[in-house]
């Protein structure tokens, strides 16, 4: 069975500090992972996907199959990063299993 664990419901960091949002997964197949973000009063949107190996808004995430993790990182947090973040795992043909989310607050 698949599982996506985001251990922190709430995370607060100061502006300019590094931030890491944790995501661990369990999946028997070849994993494909995503990070989604929801800013206040906006719709949920794709932040990044592991197969693209891209950096979006300064965020990066590396798939670590040995540790079954896909942590989201940013070296210097900005106030506009405050949002709800969801890690998601693709399963089967094409549907996503989401974690429970982490609310990030960046303190000015």
């Amino acid at each position, binding site marked *: 069975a698949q599982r996506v664990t*985001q251990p922190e*419901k709430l995370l607060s960091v100061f502006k300019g500090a590094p931030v890491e949002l944790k995501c661990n997964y369990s999946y028997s197949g070849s994993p*494909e992972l*995503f990070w*989604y973000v929801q800013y206040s009063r906006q*719709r*949920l*949107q*794709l932040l990044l*996907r592991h*197969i*693209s190996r891209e950096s979006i808004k300064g965020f990066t995430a590396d798939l670590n199959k040995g540790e079954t993790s896909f942590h989201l990182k940013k070296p210097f947090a900005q106030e506009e990063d405050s949002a709800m973040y*969801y890690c998601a795992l*693709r399963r089967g*043909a*094409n*549907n*996503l*299993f*989401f*974690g*429970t*989310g982490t609310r990030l607050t960046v303190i000015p």
Partner: protein
Amino acid sequence: DVKVTQSSRYLVKRTGEKVFLECVQDMDHENMFWYRQDPGLGLRLIYFSYDVKMKEKGDIPEGYSVSREKKERFSLILESASTNQTSMYLCASSLQGEGYGYTFGSGTRLTVV
């Protein structure tokens, strides 16, 4: 340039009513999904569809049904609304295949009283 449109932003219904939530996408996506979003529980998949007239149960289909008569439209139906179905409902769509993310609608907050 709204791509996934949910017909209602807020909805209040009475227990036992039949409720229809509508979702329309204009991106010619094959896949469409309905999730509910609850604090502390994240997003949970109710139903999804990968083609017209096709539907698959998600993780929490009980008490719900869906309809996809046209490619662009995916409807979620609560046969007899109950208070535990009070939630934010999110519709999403995507292309087929690996690597494609979802495009989400803005959500419908349903309150069942």
